[in-house]
């Protein structure tokens, strides 16, 4: 106790500089995202969104509309299903090609790896927009877009799953002279089948949501109906579509959870032996696929006709060479910066709001609210926030924040529930309020987990922020949408390259971050 009155917090300087760094970083982000909460209470905006939301009640229930709605719902399910079939047709061979399993030597695989990056890096919405140009409005564009993007995703994850299981049985078969495909079928598939099925089912659920979103660029289904309702500011119709959509997502979520549960609990001894229930499921799946193809009545053979290929080639050639003029590149750089700004601010707002909601009571009401936030895709939120605050990046930030609040709020609530209770109770015992007790006794323990969730979500939000502009919510997407609308494909091409670049960058950064956080 020699320097009793000379205690300084050794972390003070670090914390102060961190605060300053955050302010210095956030300030330009706020400017880039045109962050302006006052737009929310601007009378003109209030009038538009107020009228629109007021018209939500009652939802549109005329027979004509309900029939249309039913057809659109079936179409959405069919698009997702057929899209998944296409995705598997692409994903399975590609996974086989790039996976290192049962190989003594894995070459550079430049072509398949490049193809994979291209497929995964370009969002399905961009593909959809392009295919709508070639094939016209309708489900075909959505199916192809889903097939390409999800094909890339399936390939990557399938390969990872195959690499993650015990390699010994397959390697033993290889050593005994079995060809690689057979060694994989007999040695790896029994071990990996559950996970492969589980991931495929999960992706189908995602495809369902994605097919709704793609409707906004004219690729059919519920989304197209929603888009029409929004453009005509028809609140009643929008409300009906939204209700059906939420119900569909809820059912798909339950079905997919049940299916995954079902495959996970099947004992390993009969993992691949078909029992009667498996047969029924497989049969129903087959019916679903057939019915989907039948419903869509798209003549896919015409896709591969000479004329179609010619049209595609002509369309694609418009994208080359990309516009690399410095004026356009400057615009793109600003678009990237704006996209990052939208993603950062949206995620930060969501993390703060999610934490507050996770602490709120009663849980039942809060959970319902969070579930609604989470079930409405960012793109649908964006169409609503655009009405609320006008076109521009602020609408995108709000849309991301709303959806992400639902996701993070739920994850945060789980993390809080799992935090040890004794430190919190000890502080409450000493008279602290619940919120202070939480901040002092629980937050230090769960902060790393909350941060990990937030970073993971941010990674997804960067990709999302890049395409929110399709409905006018700023960022790279808006540049792409405008240049596509003006048929300026050379410019569109360089924006797509920028998106690809951003996606690769995010991939690398997140891989690095994961290693860093594990260390």
């Amino acid at each position, binding site marked *: *106790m020699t320097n009793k009155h000379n205690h300084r917090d050794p972390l003070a300087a670090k914390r102060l500089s961190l605060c300053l760094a955050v302010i210095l970083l956030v300030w330009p982000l706020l400017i880039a995202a045109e962050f302006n909460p006052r737009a929310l209470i601007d009378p003109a905006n209030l009038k538009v969104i107020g009228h629109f939301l007021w018209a939500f009640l009652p939802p549109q229930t005329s027979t004509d509309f309900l029939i249309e709605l039913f057809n659109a719902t079936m179409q959405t399910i069919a698009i997702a299903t057929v899209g998944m079939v296409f995705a598997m047709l692409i994903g399975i061979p590609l996974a086989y090609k790039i996976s290192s399993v049962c190989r003594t030597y894995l070459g550079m695989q430049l072509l398949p790896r490049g193809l994979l990056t291209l497929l995964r890096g370009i969002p399905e919405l961009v593909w959809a927009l392009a295919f709508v140009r070639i094939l016209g409005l309708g489900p075909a564009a959505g199916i192809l877009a889903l097939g390409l993007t999800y094909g890339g995703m399936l390939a990557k994850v399938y390969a990872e799953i195959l690499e993650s299981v015990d390699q010994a049985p397959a390697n033993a078969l290889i050593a005994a002279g079995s060809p690689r495909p057979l060694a994989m079928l007999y040695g790896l598939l029994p071990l990996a089948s559950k996970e492969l099925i589980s991931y495929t089912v999960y992706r189908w659920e995602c495809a369902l949501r994605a097919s709704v979103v793609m409707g906004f660029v004219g690729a059919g289904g519920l989304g197209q109906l929603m888009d029409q309702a929004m453009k005509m500011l028809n609140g009643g119709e929008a409300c009906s579509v939204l209700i059906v959509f939420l119900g569909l997502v809820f059912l798909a979520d339950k079905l997919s959870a049940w299916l995954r549960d079902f495959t996970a609990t099947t004992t390993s001894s009969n993992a691949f032996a078909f029992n009667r229930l498996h047969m029924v499921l497989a049969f129903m799946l087959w019916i679903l696929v057939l019915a989907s193809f039948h419903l869509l009545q798209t003549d896919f053979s015409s896709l591969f006709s000479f004329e179609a290929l010619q049209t595609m080639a002509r369309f694609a050639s418009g994208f080359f060479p990309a516009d690399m003029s410095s004026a356009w590149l400057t615009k793109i750089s600003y678009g990237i910066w704006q996209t990052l700004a939208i993603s950062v601010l949206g995620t930060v707002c969501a993390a703060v709001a999610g934490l507050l909601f996770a602490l709120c009571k009663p849980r039942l009401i809060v959970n319902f609210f969070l579930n609604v936030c989470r079930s409405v895709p960012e793109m649908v939120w964006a169409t609503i926030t655009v009405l609320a605050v006008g076109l521009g990046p602020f609408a995108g930030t709000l849309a991301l924040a709303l959806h992400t609040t639902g996701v993070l709020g739920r994850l945060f609530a789980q993390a809080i529930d799992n935090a040890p209770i004794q430190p919190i109770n000890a502080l409450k015992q000493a008279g602290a309020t619940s919120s202070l007790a939480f901040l002092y006794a629980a937050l230090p323990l769960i902060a790393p987990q909350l941060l990990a969730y937030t970073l993971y979500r941010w990674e997804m939000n960067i990709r999302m922020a890049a395409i929110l502009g399709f409905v006018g919510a700023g960022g790279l997407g808006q540049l792409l949408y405008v240049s596509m609308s003006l048929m300026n494909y050379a410019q569109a091409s360089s924006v797509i390259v920028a998106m690809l670049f951003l996606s690769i960058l995010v991939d690398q950064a997140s891989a690095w971050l994961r290693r860093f956080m594990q260390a």
Partner: protein
Amino acid sequence: MSFQLDHIDYVHANGFTALTDLSLQAKSGEQIALIGPSGAGKTTLLSLIGTRLKPTHGRLTVLNQTVDADNKRALRHLRSQIASIYQQPPLPGRQRVVTAVLAGRLGIWPAWKSLASLLYPMDIDGAANVLSKVHLSEKLFDCCDQLSGGQLQRVGMARVLYQQGALVLADEPVSALDPGLALAMIQLLQQDARERKATLISSLHSVDIALSCFERIVGLRDGQIAFDLPTQQVTPQMLDHLYANESTAHHSTTDRYTTVNRTPVPHTA
């Protein structure tokens, strides 16, 4: 009156009766040692006084207030006057010692001060002062997960010293400390309580410390008070009877007390 229990019953949620028809009271500034075999109900009794548990039957008054769980504000105010030491120090691992100690006054500080203290500790000198009393000055800015069990227990004690409650409840406060340090820490708690005229009640595993440091001994067995006497009147027979046929019989009663010291040792100032 610091606390008063009148004919208290306590039945746990699982149906186990922890305390039966128990009456106990303490005047302000009294210092009481609570002894008895494991499972006698010592922790339950301390939890009742600390308003953590609500008696199944009977009347409970703490610091001249009947406990009203519905009046949240009044309950918080009451609790800010009650300082508790736990067997397992309830400190989050990733928190710094200084913050963990300052958390003792969350019930007293205004909200803004508590919030600001998360960014910059608002009373470093105060924390350093109590930490020096438990011989942990050099750990002021360390993280709790870098401390040993005994050090953590002393940080918990420092938090209680910092809180300065009018009623101090200690549940096996020195169980993780070596005998010499244990005695010193109990004397520290006693001295602090005496200086502030606070009431101290502590359950103790070591009968030796109880007899040598405290003037009043309460023996608890099977949820009832076996004896409640000034230290001078506690006989070895009473202690043998208190711990007889203890379910955890593998450590003999001699493990708890070797020499029965009838006169309290002079308190080191």
